[in-house]
């Protein structure tokens, strides 16, 4: 009987309806695959090619690792990588320090109207252009700006304190710009940590701190990690804010790219771009390992 069934299978597989069903995903996915490959992945390939074969540079184009050697062999550039990473870590940490309690507080607001207001105020800034928000911080932080005026008016300082043209200004503005991207994912998990779970923990004799540390924190870890990932990725590649707030003094990778694009040094710009990409990939991969552990712990706690 089994033998009899097999030729039927073969026969049925030839049916056009069956074939149509089997490949139904193909027309759905083709536009996205086509676009992503034809534009994005080709662009990535272009970067790699440019980094070793800078045919736009002056002189004879030839295969060369010179740009790579120049960057990787120079401690100065490692310093720039260091500054880029440091800025990204500081911004991420500060965004977390502000974003976590804020998200937690929003989840505690009882009146829906107020909660909505808090939502809107925290998220509306993403509707305002990055350029505008950076400009706003220039207005606030420059020597003749609002903060220094208030400090002087209050008699706290005599000379204006330099808040722009240095890392301080970049960090303040970046935290402001990226905070919503931290609060979003945290808020989405804080909301899911049910009150009954916490009550259960309290019931078991845990005090509030222990409850937070043993229940809330592990359960919100996935949100924290994805928030940190988003903020980190956006910070290391940010250009406009560091450029305008840094006064040309703070050297980061995206600034190098801009410099080399201006000097029509596309080979080196491509190398820097690829280094930036590699940093993003490595850091995200590392944090994904952390995330997976956190998920597993959260699953265990939830079960």
């Amino acid at each position, binding site marked *: 009987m089994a033998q009899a069934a097999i030729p039927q299978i073969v026969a049925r597989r030839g049916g056009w309806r069956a074939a149509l069903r089997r490949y139904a995903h193909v027309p759905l996915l083709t536009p996205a695959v086509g676009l992503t490959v034809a534009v994005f992945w080709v662009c*990535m390939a272009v970067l790699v090619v440019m980094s070793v074969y800078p045919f736009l540079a002056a002189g004879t184009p030839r295969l060369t690792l010179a740009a790579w050697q120049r960057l990787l062999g120079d401690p100065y550039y490692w310093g720039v990588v260091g500054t880029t990473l440091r800025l990204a870590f500081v911004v991420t940490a500060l965004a977390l320090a502000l974003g976590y309690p804020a998200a937690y507080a*929003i989840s505690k607001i009882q009146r829906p109207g107020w909660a909505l207001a808090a939502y*809107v105020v925290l998220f509306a800034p993403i509707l305002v252009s990055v*350029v505008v*928000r950076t400009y*706003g911080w220039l207005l606030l932080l420059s020597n003749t700006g609002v903060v220094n005026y208030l400090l002087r008016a209050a008699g706290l300082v005599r000379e204006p304190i330099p808040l722009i043209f240095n890392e301080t200004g970049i960090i303040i503005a970046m935290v402001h710009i990226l905070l919503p991207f931290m609060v979003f994912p945290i808020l989405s998990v804080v909301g899911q940590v049910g009150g009954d779970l916490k009550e259960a923990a309290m019931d078991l004799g845990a005090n509030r701190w222990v409850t937070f540390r043993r229940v809330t924190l592990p359960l919100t870890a996935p949100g924290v990690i994805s928030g940190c990932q988003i903020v980190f990725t956006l910070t290391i590649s940010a250009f*406009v804010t560091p450029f305008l707030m840094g006064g040309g003094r703070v050297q980061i990778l995206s600034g190098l790219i801009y410099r080399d694009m201006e000097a029509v040094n596309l080979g080196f710009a491509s190398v820097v*771009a690829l280094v930036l990409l590699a940093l993003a990939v490595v850091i995200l991969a590392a944090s994904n390992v952390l995330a997976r552990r956190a998920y597993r712990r959260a699953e265990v706690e939830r079960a």
Partner: protein
Amino acid sequence: MRPGRDPVRLALLAFLWLVVAFMLAPIVFTLVFAFSDASYLIFPPPGYSLRWFAKLFEQRALFAAAINSLVVATAATLASLVVGTAAALGLVRYRFFGRELLRTLFLAPLIVPRIAFGVAMLIYAVVLRRFGGLDSLFLAHLMVTLPFAISILTAALVSADRSLEEAAADLGAPPLVTFWKVTLPQIRTGLAVSGFFAFIVSWDQVETSLFLVKTDNMTLPVAMFYYLQRQQDPVIAALSALLIGVAAVGAVIAVLTVNPRDLQRVLSAGGR
């Protein structure tokens, strides 16, 4: 303990209001400076006037840039919704070899530094002889908005009830009708959210566009960026005030139209 008197809770709420003040500060003061009388940044403004708005309306390049941004952002949004919905359907509704690989392929642009992509896109556009055209900008923005749309719509489709689609098919609806009458209404919030995101991301794209625009044919944020490089007079503050006004209207519309519980569901799924 009554929640109102709980000191930890009060401290948390106080902190929240500080964060809110931090978020609003640059926006509020941008509005103040828009009405400043001085031509450079100084606080408090020596006087108030509307002259920067008057000057703003003479900046035809900025308005042309705004139109460009609007066209590109609208096109990128619609395209990422259409292409993204199809792709999300393909990823969610079918099992096939290489599905996870495809998902990675789609989402990869999210982690690629945008300025790096901008560099590559310049070369790409010049080779295709589309440098400076809105079409190459559109493609560049689409690469950035599409992953957002795919991830949000995938989450929306996963949480959509598959059996409703089966029910529709069972009642005689061909696939397209099923999609239109049953699937689409279910992922409405996902569509709204991803459309909103895509629009904002495209509208506010500087790093990717920077190298792609012609100097006389820019998008708004790039035009503002170059304007700020050249000149930091309150024209940009006046323009910002207008944009903030539009954003405020947008926020109000968003609040009134989107169901917060749906939003929460989609966002929490999208955060993964």
